[in-house]
């Protein structure tokens, strides 16, 4: 030991060590913020997976995507109504309205899809390649073809209306044909897009989603056309058929429970799905059946049915996307864990 070190300085150094110890003790007290998840198990095991953590990522789509499913679905169906209307002796006003509905929907749809992209300035990269195995790629190309042909149909038919011309008439029909064909893909492919994913609530319904979405789009198109003053029996029959299909879809979701589709029947997404099902299926179906028996209140009943279908269609798309988010959180399905009950 160095003789120059006095007893008092040794005590001071010991004191300093104590200070460091106290300081470290104080600094090591970190406020405990445990992320609480409602049903999160506190263990990692073959029964709970890794502390109940999701085994899949949540869909990161924002509200633009269900909105796009809604707008795209109804404009595709509107184009088909216009095309079949042209084939038959439908009144010119209904055809004209259907064409413009398809054209306007065809303009809004790409805007919604671009707004949802993480890098919207790169939207044209969608057209770099065509991949048949990617429903997103098939859908992007379908949308391009639909938007252009639907806009061309509407513009050419306006030109034709003012100056009847054989050549323009042929062009209108050609554009109408393309937009009706791509419109049918547009109204249905979104079901494949959602169904062919790793999300259990979606992929377990891959065989019914396209039919559900087609009915939803058709009902919405008929509803908008009815509400814009086309009171034709044709639209009522289309809407009646769509509401019947929607009723069947709603029943099949309720009556075929499985662990993977829990999000379609429980929690917030379950109630949204149920409300959407009622608004799209049984309610408009009953109102329309009633309207054919009650002549005096026919117009009013059909308007209410149309509004109900429209709201139901929009809510249906939102509920499906929302259910996908909750389904991704549940690790028991991808990990094949013992069912947690419903």
């Amino acid at each position: 030991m160095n003789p120059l070190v006095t007893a008092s300085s040794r005590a001071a150094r010991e004191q300093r060590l104590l200070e460091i110890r106290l300081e470290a003790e104080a600094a090591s007290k970190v406020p405990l913020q445990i992320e609480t998840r409602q049903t999160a198990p506190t263990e990692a095991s073959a029964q709970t997976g890794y502390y109940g953590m999701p085994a899949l990522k949540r869909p990161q789509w924002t509200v633009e995507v269900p909105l796009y499913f809604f707008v795209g679905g109804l404009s595709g169906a509107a184009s088909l109504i216009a095309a079949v209307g042209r084939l038959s002796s439908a009144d010119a006003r209904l055809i004209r309205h259907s064409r413009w509905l398809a054209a306007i929907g065809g303009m809004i749809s790409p805007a919604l899809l671009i707004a949802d992209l993480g890098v919207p300035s790169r939207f044209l990269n969608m057209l770099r390649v065509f991949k048949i195995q990617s429903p997103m790629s098939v859908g992007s190309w379908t949308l391009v073809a639909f938007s252009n042909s639907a806009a061309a149909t509407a513009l050419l038919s306006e030109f034709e209306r003012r100056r009847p011309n054989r050549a323009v008439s042929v062009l209108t029909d050609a554009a109408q044909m393309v937009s009706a064909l791509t419109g049918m893909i547009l109204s249905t492919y979104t079901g494949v897009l959602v169904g062919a994913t790793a999300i259990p609530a979606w992929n377990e319904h891959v065989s019914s989603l396209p039919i559900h979405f087609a009915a939803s789009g058709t009902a919405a198109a008929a509803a908008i056309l009815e509400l814009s003053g086309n009171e034709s029996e044709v639209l009522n029959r289309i809407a009646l058929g769509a509401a019947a299909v929607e009723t069947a879809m709603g029943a099949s979701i309720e009556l075929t429970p499985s662990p993977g589709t829990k999000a379609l029947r429980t929690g917030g997404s379950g109630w949204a799905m149920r409300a959407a099902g009622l608004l799209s299926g049984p309610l408009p179906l009953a109102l329309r059946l009633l309207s054919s028996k009650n002549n005096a209140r026919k117009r009013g009943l059909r308007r209410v049915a149309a509004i109900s279908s429209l709201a139901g269609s929009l809510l249906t798309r939102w509920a499906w996307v929302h259910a996908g988010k909750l389904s991704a959180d549940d690790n028991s399905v991808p990990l094949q864990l013992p069912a947690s009950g419903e």
Partner: protein
Amino acid sequence: MSVTAFLTDSTLCIGCKACEVACKEWNQLPSDGFDWKGFSYDNTGELGHSTWRHVKFVEGGVIPGQGGNSPDNFSWGFSSDVCKHCENAGCLEACPTGAIVRTEFGGVFIQPDVCNGCAYCVVSCPFGVVERNPAKGRALKCTFCYDRQKEGLQPACATACPTESIKFGEINQLRQSAQQRMTKLQDNGFTDVHLYDPEDSSVGGIHAFFIVRGDPKTYNLPPHPEVPTTYLRKGWISAGIAAGLMLAGTLLAFGKGNIR
């Protein structure tokens, strides 16, 4: 140039998180913030856009000899998770821009200058790996250190691993050494070891296999991962039926007598 893979041997992992740190430093990934998760010593939680290696901490019951020197300590298992670089990769198939490609080393790579952030790969990954970064807008995941592999180097995580728990090499050789390791572990009395390499599932094998003790489900490794392209056939058949119903319904509604 050969097809490469990772073998992550959790029986050698000491939970030091050097792989997480090395990955973040080499790939210049941002911090995830610091939240107490309450999952043992794991405060990272899961793989994501800013986490491409993630050490899982599994606390188990008392197994003599497995909890350090004290006989009554609980057992501790660690396993470093990573993108599986599937043989049939859901993200790659789903990508509409062609941004996600297969490299010459067999890895799955997202080209940062092509991805437009549609987020379809996020729902197409059966392992919940890919994620869109909210600030950059692009999807991000493990690159398999494509840049390092091109220079003949090992990925950053394998280089930094102090116990060689993360092994990197030619895929067939690595599968062989995985089998040898499994035999050795079993001979040494570790009868509960599992090699996670779902070759018989629709993902058709992976480029990152794992040796874990106990059930791989404990580490959130799905027993039967499915590449979502398997659902396409059913989906498009249904779309065909749906389009047919739309057409038939509309034609019927207009009335067959009215069609010209």
